[in-house]
């Protein structure tokens, strides 16, 4: 599997939830392949299984059956410890509500994955400042989340997702809590990062406009992939 260019490959992926006597099929056999360095948007109606798929690919949730490979690791069978180090060292998460630690300064939030990985404080600070510079918040390193706007907070969260130099960034409705202008800035930032750093980005959204920033759009319905469209980008859209 490792020889192809695809970073993510799922086969017959199922995730069922038992709710009393009812069985909910959040994922009803998902076969998906995502190539390295692409920006993929995951769209679909509410309850179609977008977040579930994202969580399984991110090693936060385990499939009920089927396989999910990220690079050379099959997450369904990997031991818990493997999943922890996978999340810590290879994945970056971006959440709808930013989820920054309120007591930590911006740079400390950015450096959290590095702290968990046991890096030294001075190394963390340097890397965090560098990343904050990249997301345009070089002058806010010592601010606490409460002192930042929503857009700024989400950019700190993006910097945090980049801190461990991940192969994969997973974002669940990253613009859901932002107004359209700020949302656009964030999307452009994400787009730029994918392009410049060759990172793979999987973004859940139900906003088609947001999805249009991606290279590919995966449509889901009832726990299945309905359609995959590839966006042909013209030169002016990039600018």
């Amino acid at each position: 599997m490792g020889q192809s260019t695809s970073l993510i490959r799922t086969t017959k992926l199922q995730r069922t939830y038992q709710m009393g006597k009812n069985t909910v099929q959040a994922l009803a056999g998902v076969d998906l392949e995502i190539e390295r360095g692409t920006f993929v948007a995951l769209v679909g109606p509410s309850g179609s299984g977008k977040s579930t798929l994202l969580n399984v690919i991110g090693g936060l949730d385990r499939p009920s059956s089927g396989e999910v490979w990220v690079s050379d690791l099959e997450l369904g069978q990997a031991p818990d410890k493997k999943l922890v180090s996978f999340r810590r060292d290879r994945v970056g998460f971006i959440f709808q509500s930013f989820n920054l630690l309120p007591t930590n300064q911006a740079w400390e939030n950015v450096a959290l994955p590095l702290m968990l990985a046991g890096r030294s404080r001075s190394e963390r600070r340097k890397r965090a400042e560098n990343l904050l510079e990249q997301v345009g918040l070089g002058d806010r390193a010592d601010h606490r989340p409460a002192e930042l706007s929503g857009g700024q907070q989400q950019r700190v969260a993006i910097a945090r997702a980049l801190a461990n130099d991940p192969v994969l960034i997973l974002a669940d409705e990253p613009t859901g809590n932002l107004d359209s202008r700020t949302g656009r800035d964030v999307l452009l930032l994400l787009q730029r990062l994918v392009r410049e750093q060759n990172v793979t980005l999987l973004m859940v959204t139900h906003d088609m406009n947001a999805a249009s920033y991606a290279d590919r759009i995966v449509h889901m319905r009832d726990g299945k992939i309905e359609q995959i469209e590839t966006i042909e980008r013209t030169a002016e859209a990039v600018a």
Partner: protein
Amino acid sequence: MTFGDILRTAWSNLTRRKVRTSLTSLGVTVGIFTIVVMLSLGVGVQRVIQQQFDAIGLENVVVQPRDAERNPYTRYVRPEREVVISPAKIAEWQQMDDIVSVTPIVDVNESISKRLVLPGDAAATIAVGVDPGIGINNPFETPPTALAGVLRPTKDGEIVISQRALRRLGLTAEVNNLIGQKVQLVMETPRGESQSFDYTLVGVSSVDNNLVALTPNDSIALKAWWFNEPDLLDKEGYDYALIRAKDLNVARQLTTQLRAERFRVQSVETVLELASKIFLVINIMLGSVGGLALFVATIGIMNTMIMAIYERTREIGTLKAIGASRGNIRTLFMTEAGLIGLFGGIVGLLGGWGVGRILNRVALAYLEREEVPIRGDFFYIPPWLIGLAIGFGLVVGIVAGLYPAARAARLDPIKALRHE
């Protein structure tokens, strides 16, 4: 996560809810404070008593003869003695290795009437007793000093009288002129026979009683005359002997040996052993009061931690999503709980120390006012108590944190992230 990172993170989480953190650790403070105050009192009092006993000298052994079984028909006759502290015995003991001194003591019964007579111009007469001179200072009284001359007679025919006797004779002003003067003790039996004994006054002691001090031989002479028993010393021996051993071990051996010889032996050590047993019980009881407070504090910390974990569920979810292991989360919350306990312990220790110091001052002022010659700290914090207080605080916190931390570590990250 390094230890420094964990401490720093725990600290910033605790300081974000300063009031709650302080109130929670206050529970530990109360418990540790109680334990520190109680134990430092127990330890302090025990130490003060120990010091008093040390002043007496634990190496002193008091030997008494043993009276034979009493015959019910001879109730009014003085009991026979089974073993006698004879002058020969005294000499034998003096010959033993590691014995510093042996002092024979004679107890001239209070009921034997004696009058101290000052002949000559300043003639005066008062009733007195004879000081048996056990030679062990009562720790609760100021040790006597010699106002003039010496404190105890050293040769037969010498006498030391007390300050009070002097006052009652009306001679206070001329203390020093009295040394070397002749005085007499006059004894009178109920039958009306009387006998006077001559002495040279060699000292005035500061004690405030009616006693005069004589040498053992002179005391024996008084008794021998009273009971009309010229060879009283041979028959009954001395009433006590004070043996001063070189050290405690020698005293202990001597005690067993003398008991085997059927002497009655009191050693201060026996008393001290009993005292320390009593103190152990008291310490345990007082310590339990603090223990109860700590139990309550443990529940308080647990409650606070569970609340904190509930409030921070999303944070925990976030941390887990970005790669925190269960161990990281558990360590983090255990550290927070441990720190609450640790602060409580330190503050409780400082509080207990401060209150102990204040009470020491108060006690000292009281003792000085009452003229009790005991000094020393009644509240004393030995190094082990510092360790115990801080360690206990920490342990209480960690124990209280066990369950909440395990709960936090077990949280499902997806559910935690969805938590409002």
